[in-house]
């Protein structure tokens, strides 16, 4: 089942990859994932996206928690911080607060994010920390050799659920939409080109962007989220989907028997950095002058909100 129309020659393809400059974003470490793991395409997607956006790797930090997905920082050639289980987001927040200029990318798996780290997501989202959170969802704990996770399907048999999983899975997209995340999208590791585009959009968005990446665990899940099953259940968002309409986004996120790929929702609103500079202005008494000048408190507030974004949105 291939839709390749013309033959691809390895040498030409390699030359193309070398010429693109994408490999500069790959580290020399060899990924520790199992052959066939969906996460390889996330590394490819990330390097492609960063290359396309010309992001300076010296000014980029990839922060992760613990798990298969969290080994990610070792495989890209940027600054990286492999932290504790569930704590990627608060560490990333600290980094962003310390140096606004850095491009901060947090990565993690479904257990890392929604089990142990669940308390941190709403707060990173509501503060609108200007960073990208890429979540690798394979519905299983891989690094501890196959236990149920918060996104495991009902009836899933694992070493910790020998009599089938009875805990209903979470709906991460619904959660993120209701937390107020400023950019919410979904991609699938089996569609690497689309994945790369989605990562590019998420990186380019100014504010907290959340990309949910569906991926199979080829070693410990032979029955539920396999390439075959995921490949059959993914679909495109309906034509004319309005990314500014949160209710439309939620309606799509509610449908879980088929999984829509693409950008569900996006909005531009003041980020944590904007808020902090506003606090500084007020503390230094500059806000008062502003008020006197315009005599309209509303105006000064919108001024701070629409600071020129550092990166231009790619879409």
């Amino acid at each position: 089942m291939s839709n390749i129309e013309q033959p691809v020659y390895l040498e030409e393809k390699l030359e193309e990859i070398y010429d693109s400059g994408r490999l500069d974003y790959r580290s020399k470490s060899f990924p520790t994932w199992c052959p066939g793991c969906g996460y390889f395409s996330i590394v490819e997607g990330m390097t492609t996206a960063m290359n396309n956006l010309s992001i300076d790797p010296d000014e980029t930090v990839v922060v992760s928690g613990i798990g298969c997905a969290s080994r990610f920082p070792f495989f890209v050639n940027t600054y990286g911080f492999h932290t504790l289980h569930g704590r990627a987001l608060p560490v990333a927040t600290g980094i962003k607060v310390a140096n606004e200029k850095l491009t901060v990318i947090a990565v993690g798996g479904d257990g890392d994010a929604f089990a142990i780290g669940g308390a941190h997501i709403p707060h990173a989202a509501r503060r609108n920390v200007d960073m990208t959170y890429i979540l690798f969802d394979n519905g299983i704990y891989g690094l501890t050799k196959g236990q149920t996770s918060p996104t495991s399907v009902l009836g899933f048999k694992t070493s910790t659920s020998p009599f089938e999983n009875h805990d209903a899975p979470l709906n991460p997209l619904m959660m993120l939409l209701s937390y107020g995340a400023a950019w919410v999208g979904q991609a699938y590791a089996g569609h690497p080109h689309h994945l790369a585009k989605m990562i590019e959009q998420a990186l380019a968005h100014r504010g907290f962007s959340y990309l949910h990446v569906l991926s199979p665990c080829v070693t410990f899940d032979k029955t539920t989220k396999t390439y075959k099953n995921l490949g059959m259940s993914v679909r495109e968002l309906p034509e004319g989907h309005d990314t500014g309409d949160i209710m439309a986004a939620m309606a799509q996120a509610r449908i879980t028997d088929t999984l829509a790929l693409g950008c569900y929702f996006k909005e531009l609103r003041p980020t944590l950095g904007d808020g902090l500079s506003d606090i500084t202005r007020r503390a230094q008494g500059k806000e008062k002058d502003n008020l006197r000048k315009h005599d309209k408190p509303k105006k000064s507030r919108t001024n701070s909100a629409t600071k020129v974004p550092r990166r231009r949105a790619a879409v």
Partner: protein
Amino acid sequence: MARAQKKSTDIQIAICGSAGDGTIAAGDILKRAMAKAGYKVIAFDVYPPEIRGFGKCISRVRISSEQTYSLKPLSDVLISLDDSHAIPHVVEVRDFGAVIYEDTPVSMVPEGAHISGHLLLTHLPYGVPFRELSEQVTSSARSRNIAAVGYLAGLYGMPRDVFYGVISDKFSAKPASLTQINIQAFDAAFEVGRDTFRLDEGHLNPPPSNARNGDLMMMSGNGAIVRGCMDAGLDAFFGYPITPATTIMERLASELPVKGKTMLQTEDEISAISATIGAGYAGVRAATATSGPGFALMSEMMGLGAMAEVPAVIFVSQRGGPSTGMPTQTEQSDLNIAVFGSAGDSQRVVLAPTNVEGCYKCAGKAFEIAERYQTPVIVLLDLYLSNRYEAVELPAKNPFKENCSKPVGKLKKDQTYHRFEITKDFISPRAIPGDKGYRHVVTGLEHDEKGRPRDQTHQKMSQKRHEKLLSVPRLPNINMSKRFGDKGKVDVAIIGWGSTFGEILEAMIVARTEGIRCAAMKVVLLSPLPLEPINALLNDSREVLVPELNYEGQFANMLTGATGRSVTRLNRVPGTPMHVQDILDEIRRLAGKKPGKAKGRKRLAAE
């Protein structure tokens, strides 16, 4: 305690009332005014964990011309703003001390409910109509607490002018008429006090002529921490509210943005320490503050900080534990978790100041140490130290260094940067995100010199993380330990840490006047221990006493473990500061003297 001698002053005033009476405010005005007048002041407030609901508030202020180190167990004056709360504290007034109380209650008082029926024969009663005084001048009873302070000031001949300034400052945010009203109430009561026939012999001598008026600032332990942070150039603070550390966060919330810096209230303590570590990794000076329960949550991140070699400063103001424990009572029981609390061999630096000035120094130094040694530094405070006020003089010139990080050298061609390079002093040159060409990954996994996960390097890297800290006790410009008292051989050595050291010093001074050869040592650096001076003192002494406010003797355990010397423990967990008398009795016992008849009355269980 020695009675106030001629020309010198040593008066301790306790103001006791119900929450809402303005007890703490009255104490605040008194201590600030006296510090302004040039006296040495130590003050400590006790208040209930509830905001409303008639809890007991006590404000104790010790005013002296010589430097003192703790509060006295017996006060010279007790002012009662609420008799039901003040009656149990009558026994804490010394013989021939004064009790000042409301003598015209607003309604019928049931038998035994008025304080005058509870005074001892040796107490001197001063009945004053605070309420009436306040109502006459201000047509409201709300300035009752100010009237009480005014009466006291008149009675003891305190300088009037300084109070005006302090009262104006206190109400500066309120309408000007309020300041006027309170000054009127103060004045009216001052005159009544001045014209009162004095019964007691205690009086306020003018402050020593060498006292520098105005140079001394009234400052709490937490206030000094904030000053230290600001002077050390703190860039980002992350915190979650918890008694008694919250005031650090509150003050920084208004001070940091003025300098263009950041204070962020996080969703929990885990997030607070995580963001602190994150900011430290990104190369700025970052800190968080918490108390025992929050610190317990932070301990996993402390391990990451040690493993990934990231600087961070954590202020821990201890309270009664375990668990939620006693949120508004003091204790020194988080030493174990501060020194050992994390998975694995997680070496870190722990500093514990013993007084308010020490809070300032330790706060600033903590940033230097964290940056230099690339590791989390804990500054251990406790509620008694966080909330107690002392008149301190801070250095005019900022004493803290700006950047203590070990810089990276220029890389040769084809040379890769090794984040965890093992050097002579075991400290690796540190690059931060944004530095061109020094890209690396730090991790909580055991790693090699490049930072790549590797188990085989564990022995070598454990040694690196351990040995790099061994030079901390020899750092200049800060006393990691200090010996006081007799030099050479002594009968009793008292070793202490944290806020309890004030009481230890007072007890030692009294013991020496009784002819006991003794020395006291404060240990500021609790990890790694400054063993050289500690061993020197242990070798000099016949008996060693370790008083501390925890049940198990956590510091005594550490000392015994590190030196092999068995020590005598004095452990108390009343939730209040250690009593000088208890330490003194123990010194006398160890010195082979019969416990002498305590001057003043034996303390009764009042709190």
